[in-house]
């Protein structure tokens, strides 16, 4: 894993969460542009997964495999499912859902970093 990529991801998640919370406070539902934001984060997560995979193959590094890939898979699945679920709701609660999902992804990414370094 690369630290700059992790920081970028956490910042992006925080930004999306802030954006969605601001919408929730103004009683607005999720808009398409926010879903594009979520898609950008998802793309970063895919890049992160590829980088981590390559590093695991090329470097001599012992990581708890099942744990690491379990967290990574969860992080990858969570945002698309949550975005879909949020977008189907047309009240402010859709914005709260997106914010919760973004915060969760940031948390999962931080856990990934811990698991990566723990070995």
């Amino acid at each position, binding site marked *: 894993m690369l630290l700059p990529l992790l920081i970028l991801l956490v910042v992006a998640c925080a930004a999306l969460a802030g954006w969605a919370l601001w919408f929730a406070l103004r009683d607005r539902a999720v808009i398409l542009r926010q879903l594009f934001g979520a898609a950008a984060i998802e793309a970063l997560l895919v890049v992160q997964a590829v980088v981590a995979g390559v590093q695991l193959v090329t470097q001599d590094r012992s990581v708890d495999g*099942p*744990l690491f890939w*379990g*967290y990574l898979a*969860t992080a990858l*699945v*969570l945002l698309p*499912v*949550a975005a*879909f*679920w*949020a977008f*189907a*709701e*047309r*009240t402010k*609660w*859709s914005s*709260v*859902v997106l914010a*919760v*999902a973004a915060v*969760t992804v940031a948390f999962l990414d931080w856990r990934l970093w811990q698991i990566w370094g723990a070995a």
Partner: protein
Amino acid sequence: MSRTERTGPRTGSGFGRLLVTVYGVLAFAAIGRSSYELATKFSEAPVAYSLSTLSAVVYVLATLALAKGGPRWRAVAWATVAFEAVGVIAVGAASAAAPDVFGETTVWSGFGQGYGYVPLVLPFVGLWWLWHTRPGRSGAVRDPEDGSAHDSSTTSPPEA
């Protein structure tokens, strides 16, 4: 008769949408945790890891039931959410009184401490929500997508 009158307001809409999301995340966490434990170290603490698996199944059922709504799913939701409330209190108390019994931690150990106490709070919020959206409740918050379609008892819910 409208679907809302027959089954009560939808449990997966409005605030319920958030509730289902948090339940879904917790279900994911519990599945991940239990499958990891079962695959790598079940023999170390069979009681704790069996409990993990049971809680994962219950969280998945509760998530599904709250998302689906309808009379039957509502009953499933009541049962699973109430089970969680009892589970987190019982296991939390037991893990505090006799830490050795479980050998290892579960989602419910220490009243859900490892998950920011979300497992402790969530079932009670769930019970409140099920009560709040119970069928026949006057002045209940109705699903906006449902309110205008009073003769749509056969239409399927507009959910994913």
